[in-house]
């Protein structure tokens, strides 16, 4: 069990206190079962997938699914911090698209300009992370110093980011020049020890995220603020700084996801990253983090992200269900998994 569940965060209302009391009184094994909800869901799905199509359980397919999950998964790890602190970020999909577009334009320009394609690609990758951090910082400042609701700030930037990408792309697609694209391709397509690079990055981001959340004072502050912002303020936590940092952290995660995404197709268009924000938020919540903040787990988030892509993978590998109902199946599974872990709010 992840450590953050051993010391429950301070209850913030009387009602919450009662709930807390009730859950403490409940038998321990059901608590455990609830915590394992997403894992059980994933295991059941995998069994179903294997029964429906033997190819599901192959290593190649597993790697395909994990590589695909990497983008949403990495973003979800950052999103987990924001949601635990009681915030939300709706702009991540658009942000990823704009960063992808900017990086492509930059690399296309810097390749010939600097004379070293490799340098251009490396600088492009750095730019992705820097842009993510800057966008995140802007969100954080608007939300804390500007005192605007995170929902509104990021709803605004959701439109702004995507509109600028569409503008830069002239409504079409921005495409990486061929030679540069070949040079950048291994970042997505290459493998280390049989495991694709994006999966490695995903694992590293998840581990680092887990360590920050559970083993540092900063992680504690994030949980405390999500649990009760006023109390955290009285306890001399620099609430604004911690909150700003959660958005910067998420921005960096989006940057990392994007620098892995760009070499996949070598292009960005107005449809890039469409609805990623909802997928990332769903991964976090399905993984057992409360949407209202206060508590959550990175492990759950990772399982949630994998679960979401396994569903569509299984649907693609079979044709027993009408294609018109694919989205419905996804909806049913999400609700069922949420039901399995319901006791933990």
């Amino acid at each position, binding site marked *: 069990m992840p450590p953050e569940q051993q010391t429950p965060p301070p209850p913030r209302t009387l009602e919450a206190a009662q709930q807390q009391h009730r859950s403490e009184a409940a038998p321990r094994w059901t608590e455990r079962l609830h915590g394992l909800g997403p894992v059980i869901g994933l295991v059941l799905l995998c069994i179903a997938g294997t029964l429906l*199509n033997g*190819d599901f359980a*192959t290593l*190649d*397919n597993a790697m*395909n699914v994990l590589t*695909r999950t990497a983008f949403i998964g990495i973003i979800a790890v950052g999103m987990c911090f924001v949601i635990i602190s009681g915030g939300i970020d709706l702009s991540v999909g658009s942000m990823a698209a704009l960063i992808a577009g900017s990086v492509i334009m930059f690399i296309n320009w810097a390749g010939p300009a600097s004379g070293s394609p490799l340098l251009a690609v490396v600088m492009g990758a750095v730019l992705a992370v820097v842009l993510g951090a800057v966008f995140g910082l802007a969100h954080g400042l608007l939300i804390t110093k500007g005192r605007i609701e995170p929902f509104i700030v990021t709803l605004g930037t959701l439109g702004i980011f995507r509109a600028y990408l*569409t503008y830069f*792309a*002239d*409504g*079409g*697609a921005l*495409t990486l020049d061929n030679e540069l694209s070949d040079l950048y391709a291994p970042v997505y*397509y290459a493998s280390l020890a049989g495991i694709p690079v994006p999966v490695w990055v995903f694992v590293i981001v998840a581990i680092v995220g887990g360590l920050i959340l559970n083993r540092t004072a900063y992680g504690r502050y994030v949980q405390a603020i999500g649990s009760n912002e006023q109390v955290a303020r009285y306890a001399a936590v620099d609430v604004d700084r911690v909150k700003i940092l959660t958005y910067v952290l998420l921005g960096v995660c989006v940057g990392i996801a994007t620098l892995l995404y760009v070499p*996949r*197709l070598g*292009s960005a*268009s*107005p*449809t*890039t990253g*469409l609805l990623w924000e909802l997928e990332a938020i769903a991964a976090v919540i399905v993984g057992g983090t409360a949407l209202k903040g206060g508590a959550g787990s990175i492990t759950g988030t990772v399982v949630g992200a994998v679960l979401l892509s396994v569903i*569509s*993978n299984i649907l*693609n*590998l079979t*044709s027993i269900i009408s*294609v*018109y109902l*694919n989205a419905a199946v996804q909806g049913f599974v999400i609700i069922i998994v949420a039901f399995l872990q319901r006791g933990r709010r």
Partner: protein
Amino acid sequence: MTTFTRRLALTAVAAAAFASLPALAAEKVNLGVSIPAATHSFMGGINYWANQAKKDLEKEHKDLKITIKTAANAPEQANQLQDLSTVTKINALVVFPFESAALTKPVAQVKAKGAYVTVVDRGLTDTSAQDAYVAGDNTAFGRIPAEYIVKQLNGKGNVVALRGIATTLDNERMDAFNAVLKNSPDIKLLDAKYANWNRDDAFKVTQDYLTRFKNIDAIWAADDDMAVGVLKAIEQAKRDDIKIIFGGAGAKGMVKTIMDGKDKRITADVSYSPKFIYDAIKLTAEARLKGEKLPATTIIPSVLITKENAKDFYHPNSPF
């Protein structure tokens, strides 16, 4: 080609009319254009060609004013139609509806106020709300690739298809594709799944097709954007069994590939150019300047693009 000659004829007639009877041109045409925002490459092309039409036609006719509005969704488009009618006071409208049913009433209201209405691409559910209809040929969009694939595979092989977004337009294409395959019992359509006219989704769906089917002869990507994702997925899986990848619409990158013969799997495409919005605006504007009507239905034909005719479909300046 029929439309081209028709357009030529119209222009000639228009020129003659202007030369001989300048007094007739006194009536100004205030033309509104309502199109979806550039949310993907094809719509980017629609936006490009609409603006191109405004530029060309306003220069050519001083009595013509064109107002272009782009909408992100159907309700927004309905609001813009109202604005065009009451604020801009248009007397002619070219509309590319987001969806058929939801926009039928709003378009009917514009027509009720006396504007001449040309509907483009997606037909309205009640055709009395429109004066003229200009569209691409969705049946040919599905039929031509099917015929090409059947011929290239000599009537035998495994095919998978990608679909766009569940719409009547997508259904028409798929039905036409299926209708051709029915006559070739040895061509097997293994599956057809939605990839939303999106490169990333096409990549994922193709990856899963490649996992699931060990032998695929042809992929009907059904859209040049989706074909990009298909190619990357095949490249990643290092599969060499696929002989044909057929996109659709004639995006400039794809047409260039065919023109240069760069990829032996991509030898043909079917045209469905966003340029038809340009034709629709031009036809409507020029007919209205003369106080004439358009034929009730004008179909811009979809034709097979191969190496021989590819250069006619290559527009390097268009975003699509």
